[in-house]
C-alpha cells in the first residue's frame, strides 16, 4: 500500500509518504509558507522513493478543522493531485491526526484517552475526544465541536483525559477554570498535527474503502458563521 498524506491546517506544513508500513515525512513550522513548501515536499518524497504520483494507491489530507486558508490549501492540492493521477482521497480529521501523534508518546508509553483542544482564533476552540484502539489507531469518541473555552465540557466517561493542542497556551485560564474537578493531564507542547499521522489513519481508511473522489476532497471548517447578514435591506431613505 502506497499513500501520500499532507497536513496544512496549522502553522506547520507537512507531507508524508507511506510505503508498505514505512513512513517518510517532511515537516516544517512555517507560518504562511505552506504554498511555497507543500508541492516541493511532495516532489522530494516521491523522488526519494523513485515513485510517480499515479503509482500510489491513494492520497490523504488533513481536512480540518484549522485555519481556513490552510484547509483550502490542503483540499486544493489533494483535489489537483488526486484528479490528475486518478487517486482515491481520504479526508482525515486534523484533530484525529494530532490525537494519533499524541497516542504514542516519545517515552514509548501509550496514551488511551486523548482530548484535543485546538485554538480556533476569535476567542473560540475546536475540540474532540479520541480513544486509542487495540490496533494503535485512535477513534473519535465525540462529535467535534466549536465553542468558547469557558463553555467547554469534558467528554463523557470516567478516567483521566490527556489534553493536547494549541488552545491550552492561548486560553489557559479559561480552560483551567472550566475544567476544575475534571481528571486531566495537559501536554501543551503537542499542538501540530503531522502528515505522518494523517497517513497512518489514512491507510486504515483506504484499506477499508472509506474514500471519496477528488472533487469531494473538501475542508471541514466547523465554524460556519463567517459573515453577518444585514438585518434588513437598508437604503438611506
Amino acid at each position: 500500500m502506497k499513500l501520500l498524506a499532507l497536513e496544512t491546517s496549522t502553522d506547520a506544513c507537512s507531507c508524508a509518504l507511506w510505503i508498505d508500513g514505512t513512513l517518510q515525512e517532511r515537516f516544517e513550522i512555517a507560518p504562511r509558507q505552506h504554498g511555497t513548501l507543500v508541492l516541493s515536499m511532495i516532489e522530494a518524497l516521491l523522488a526519494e522513493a523513485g515513485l510517480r504520483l499515479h503509482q500510489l494507491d491513494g492520497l490523504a489530507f488533513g481536512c480540518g478543522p484549522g485555519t481556513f486558508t490552510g484547509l483550502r490549501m490542503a483540499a486544493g492540492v489533494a483535489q489537483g493531485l488526486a484528479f490528475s493521477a486518478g487517486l482515491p482521497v481520504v479526508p482525515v480529521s486534523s484533530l484525529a491526526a494530532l490525537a494519533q501523534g499524541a497516542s504514542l508518546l516519545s517515552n514509548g508509553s501509550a496514551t488511551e484517552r486523548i482530548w484535543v483542544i485546538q485554538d480556533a482564533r476569535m476567542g473560540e476552540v475546536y475540540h474532540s475526544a479520541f480513544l486509542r484502539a487495540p490496533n494503535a489507531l485512535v477513534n473519535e469518541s465525540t462529535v467535534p465541536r466549536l465553542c468558547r473555552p469557558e463553555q467547554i465540557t469534558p467528554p463523557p466517561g470516567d478516567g483521566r483525559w490527556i489534553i493536547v493542542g494549541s488552545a491550552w497556551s492561548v486560553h489557559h485560564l479559561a480552560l483551567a477554570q472550566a475544567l476544575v474537578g475534571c481528571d486531566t493531564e495537559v501536554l501543551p507542547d503537542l499542538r501540530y498535527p503531522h502528515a505522518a499521522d494523517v497517513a497512518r489513519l489514512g491507510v486504515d481508511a483506504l484499506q477499508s474503502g472509506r474514500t471519496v473522489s477528488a472533487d469531494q476532497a473538501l475542508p471541514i471548517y466547523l465554524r460556519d458563521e463567517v459573515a453577518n447578514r444585514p438585518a434588513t435591506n437598508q437604503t438611506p431613505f
Partner: protein
Amino acid sequence: MGDMGNDRCVLGIETSCDETGVAIYHGQRGLLAHALHSQVALHAVYGGVVPEIASRDHVRRVLPLVREVMTQADITPSDLCGVAYTAGPGLIGALLVGAAVGRSLAFGWDVPAVAVHHMEGHLLAPFLEPNPPSFPLLALLVSGGHTLLIDVEGVGRYRILGESLDDAVGEAFDKTAKLLGLGYPGGPALAALAESGNRSRFVFPRPMTDRPGLDFSFSGLKTCAVTTLRREGNDPQTRADIAYAFQEAVVDTLAIKCQRALRQTGRRRLVVAGGVGANHALRARLTDLVAQEGGSVHYPRLAFCTDNGAMIALTGWLRLRAGVREPLCIRALARWPLDTLSTVSEP
C-alpha cells in the same frame, strides 16, 4: 514536459472574486470549452462579496468545472500542454484556491503551469473573438474592481495612462444602484432603469474632465445621486431620471477620456473589456467615438466581459508559448501592478 506545439491545449482557471471560471484554449482551434459558476446569489444577501464565502464556494466548484470542460472539449490530459490560473490581483483566499488546484493539476499531469494576471486576461479577451485587433492599441478596462486606461504595445507591454482615484466604475454603478433600492449587485439593473429615465431632467457632472490628465473619479457621482434623490423625492420616475443622469455622466466621462487618450497616443484601435464593457450605452457611445476618430473598437462577447476562465486560458497559452513558467509553488497576489508583467511577443 509537454511541448508547446499549436496542436495542444491549455486549461485556464479563474477564481479571483465571485465567479469560478474554467476553460480550455487550443493553440490552433481556439476556445474549445468554457464553464462558469457565478456566486452572485450567494453574496447578494450580504450586499457585497464576502471573501470567506467566496473562497469556500470556489473550492467546491473548481474541480467539477474542470471535469465539465474536459468532457465538453472532448480532450484527455495528454492533450494539455499547460495549466493557467489567475494569481492576482483579487481576493487572496479566493485566488489561492485556483492556484492550489491549478498548480497541483499541472504537477500531477507533468505539464508547466503559468500564473496569469487577471486584468491582462480581461485586456486580451477580445482576442477570443473573430477579427481580433492587432497591436498597438488602447485598452479601457472597466469592472467592479478596476478602471484603467492602458497603452498596449503588445502582450505584456502595458503603460497605465489613467486609473480611478477612488471607486472603480462598476463599484460606482453598484453603489448608486443600492442607493436607488435596486439591490446588489445592481449595476445592470441601474442601466435597465436608465432606459425609462427623462433625458433632460438632471445633468450630473463629468468628473475630472475639466482638467488635463486621464485619471478618473467616480465617488462624487454617487454622492450626487444621493443629494438629488433627497432633494427631488424618491418616486419611481425620479429614480429612473437619476439612473439615466448617472449612467450618462459615467459614459460621457469614459468617452471623453478615451478620446483624449486616443489622440494623445495616436492609437487607432480601442479595446473595451471588463464587466462594465457589457453596458449598452457605453458600447454605443464608444462605437460612435471611434467612428468619429477613424479607428476601430473591439469588445469581447458579453459573457467574456465579466470574469471567466476563457480569458485566463488564452492568456496562459500566450505566456506558456513564450516560455513563462510558474515554479513549483502555490502563490497569489492581492495586489499586482499590471505594468510589472514580463513582455511576450505578439500573438
